[in-house]
């Protein structure tokens, strides 16, 4: 027996062709109204509990080990605890992405009975004013914070995430200190994805180039310690559609939560059939680094937090360079001649 490195695991998983890690959007309803959200809120005919059980049964047979329950806000589902326990029964390491505002007595009892593998929550500021300017719901900051504290106290593995926007970047260092005080890891990202809802434009909330350049010049501790990770190997191939996939609230299947290129529909085909035979997935699995023509020889490749989902959201083509990621990489690489609006954010 040996402890497995992630590289070694990845090799086994890819060899066996397994969706090792799956994100399951069990609802697209949400009680918050986050400005930057990529989801279409409450538009779909949600999968029933029976349909969800069939999907989870299939994932178990396919070899999936990690399932992340998310949404929308997954705790809005009245059958959430049933879904959660079913995941546990199936032997999944069950993660949860939640805003944690709705954690009630029933959920807490469930988490004490069966601890989630990890819970990821989002905070968007160190103050209620800033956080709620983004979530759009008064009182959401205190509720999220209180429930994060409860989970930490009960020994649940909690991570705090944030999306850095023009409305909150000035509080990121304060938020970093807040998370440090709570004893939870903090992972902010500058990546704001286009929305599935064409009427919502999250891109307008991105941090302006001049502000990011100013932060870089200040040698901001936040940027230094927590900026989106580098890509030292320069790899352009990720695990989307190869080791991972995403299933949305009405059963549509995607290569990952960010790459919204539809591969199939579990209401029309079984998940194993989609995973093996989808023409979209087969195409994705045939790509090599050199197929990303604009990125392959890019000088900023190793400082780029590359994501084909961003490219697909911008162009409808995952192989084209993302304007926004080019902008962020240029700034991280020290591109002082970069002008506002020249790419990505206006």
């Amino acid at each position: 027996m040996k402890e497995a490195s992630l590289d070694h695991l990845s090799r086994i998983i890819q060899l066996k062709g397994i969706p090792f890690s799956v994100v399951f959007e069990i609802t697209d309803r949400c009680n918050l109204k986050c400005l930057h959200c990529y989801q279409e809120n409450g538009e779909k005919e949600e999968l029933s509990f029976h349909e969800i059980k069939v999907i989870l049964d299939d994932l178990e047979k396919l070899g999936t080990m990690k399932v992340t329950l998310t949404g929308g806000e997954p705790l809005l589902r009245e059958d959430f605890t049933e879904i959660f326990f079913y995941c546990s029964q199936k032997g999944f390491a069950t993660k949860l992405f939640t805003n944690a505002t709705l954690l009630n007595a029933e959920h807490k009892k469930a988490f004490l009975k069966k601890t989630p593998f990890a819970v990821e929550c989002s905070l968007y500021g160190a103050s209620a004013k800033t956080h709620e300017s983004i979530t759009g719901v008064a009182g959401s900051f205190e509720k999220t914070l209180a429930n994060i504290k409860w989970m930490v106290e009960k020994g649940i593995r909690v991570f705090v995430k944030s999306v850095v926007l023009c409305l909150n970047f000035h509080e990121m260092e304060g938020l970093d200190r807040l998370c440090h005080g709570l004893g939870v890891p903090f992972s902010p990202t500058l990546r704001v994805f286009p929305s599935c809802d064409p009427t919502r434009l999250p891109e307008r909330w991105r941090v302006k180039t001049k502000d990011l350049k100013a932060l870089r010049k200040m040698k901001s501790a936040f940027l230094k310690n927590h900026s989106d990770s580098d890509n030292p190997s320069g790899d352009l191939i990720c695990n989307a559609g190869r080791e991972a996939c995403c299933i949305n609230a009405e059963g549509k299947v995607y290569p990952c939560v960010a790459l919204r290129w539809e591969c199939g529909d579990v209401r029309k085909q079984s998940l194993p059939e989609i995973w093996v035979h989808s023409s979209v997935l087969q195409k994705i699995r045939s790509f090599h680094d050199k197929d990303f023509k604009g990125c392959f020889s890019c000088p900023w490749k190793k400082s780029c937090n590359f994501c084909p989902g961003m490219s697909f959201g911008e162009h409808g083509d995952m192989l084209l360079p993302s304007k926004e990621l080019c902008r962020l990489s240029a700034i991280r690489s020290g591109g002082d001649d970069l002008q506002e609006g020249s790419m990505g954010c206006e």
Partner: protein
Amino acid sequence: MEFCEAYFKRNKEVVWRTLGDDCILLHLESGIYYTLNEEGRMLWEALDGKNKLAEIQAKIMEQYEVDAGTMQKDLIEIMEDLIKEDLVEYDKNSFLEPKMS
């Protein structure tokens, strides 16, 4: 009690998947992944607390042409690792705590 007379079972805080001949384990508390080879997988799958280690060894030996001494040595080595990493627990229905030689 002889080690091989003890009953062991998989720790409930470990999730696992068999992928062909490979077996991947994930300890939910530590977040550490492990892999087992074919022999380890057969042992792991049998650790349900219902069979003594000696009985499990006998069943595995039906699949391999190897002498009992070598097989026992291999299984004990794997069991030591599983115990050390908190992946298994001995079944408290056993009368005595097992002692490893």
